């Protein structure tokens, strides 16, 4: 019995040692997503700058739309368990991301879909449709941020 117990403890310890890296977020994932969303913001600024101007450069919009589409795919892997808010960690991610995973996944998928759709519209070269598409894309950003991001005052 004692021998069995020791073996159980050894197995449990081994499992725990293997499990710890699985439970903790991959190192650098928070930095990755901060940098990634920064790129999305910068690309979206380029799109909106062009759409606001009298003569939009469609190639700028197309490149930026493809960038956003690619990041919108990647962001679905940017919020692993354990990468949420905790003392000493600087992140605007709210705990609701992990307490309401279904709603968050829906919001993420909505962003990816809108980004796909916008890249297609951008490729078409139709500026009027790009304006409508950019608005819809912006709304998918805002919808997710309202529920899942700590809002800054600026």
């Amino acid at each position, binding site marked *: 019995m004692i021998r069995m117990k020791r073996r159980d403890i050894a197995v449990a310890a081994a499992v725990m040692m293997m499990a710890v890296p699985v439970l903790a977020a991959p190192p650098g994932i928070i930095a990755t997503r901060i940098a990634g969303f920064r790129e999305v913001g*910068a*690309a*979206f*600024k380029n799109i909106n700058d062009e759409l606001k101007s009298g003569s939009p450069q469609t190639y700028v919009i197309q490149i930026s739309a493809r960038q956003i589409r690619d990041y919108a795919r990647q962001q679905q892997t940017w919020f692993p368990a354990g990468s949420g808010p905790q003392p000493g960690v600087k992140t605007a991610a709210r705990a609701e991301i992990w307490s309401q995973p279904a709603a968050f996944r829906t919001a993420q998928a909505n962003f990816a879909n809108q980004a796909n759709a916008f890249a297609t519209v951008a490729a078409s070269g139709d500026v009027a449709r790009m304006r409508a598409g950019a608005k819809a894309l*912006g709304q998918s950003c*805002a919808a997710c941020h309202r529920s899942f991001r700590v809002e800054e005052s*600026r």
Partner: protein
Amino acid sequence: MTSRQRQFVWDMPVRVFHWSLVGLLGFSWWSAETRHMDWHLLSGQAVLFLILFRLIWGLVGSDPARFSRFIRRPRTVWAYLTRKGGGMGVEAIGHNPAGGWSVIAMLFVLTVQVVTGLFAVDIDGIESGPLSYLVDFDQGRWASSIHAISFNGLLALIALHIVAILFHLIARRNNLVGAMVTGSRPVGAGEAVAVRKGHPIAFLIALGLSGSAAWWLFAQG
């Protein structure tokens, strides 16, 4: 009452400037907090117009509105604050030596506020000032952070402004708000002095310059 006279202090442009600014700052604050950015930009354009007008009016307006009349040497400000300057009279028409610098500080922070707003970009790259296309995303974000910090500075200066007015009202029994509403304040018979007023043509030039500059800057976006 018949022995009472009114002393001219603030001309109509200064009063309209002042109270429009009060309304617009409240509206700007509210529209930013509630993310009504279209209205926030319009409000910013109106504030830009007012600031430009006031800067020009500070050169060509009526005497109490002129920078040359209310920007005083630090020694004068110190003497005023330590009550060595004493006395009322012509000196007391318009800003006092400390109040003049308070106005300069508020105009400076308002200018920072409007200029950073022109270049500001929000964190999602969706909302932006009319000149933000001239800067990249990070520079626009930097302008946004200055916009947020200087707004707190502006609130602090406004608080100081209100405290000073209350101090004059309660401790000095001097109602400064009345003159900013009516343009004049009561003085004893024979105490009123003539004050040079701004020329209507100077007013039209100031209005035209500030109006067209505010329109043109926002038409760029």
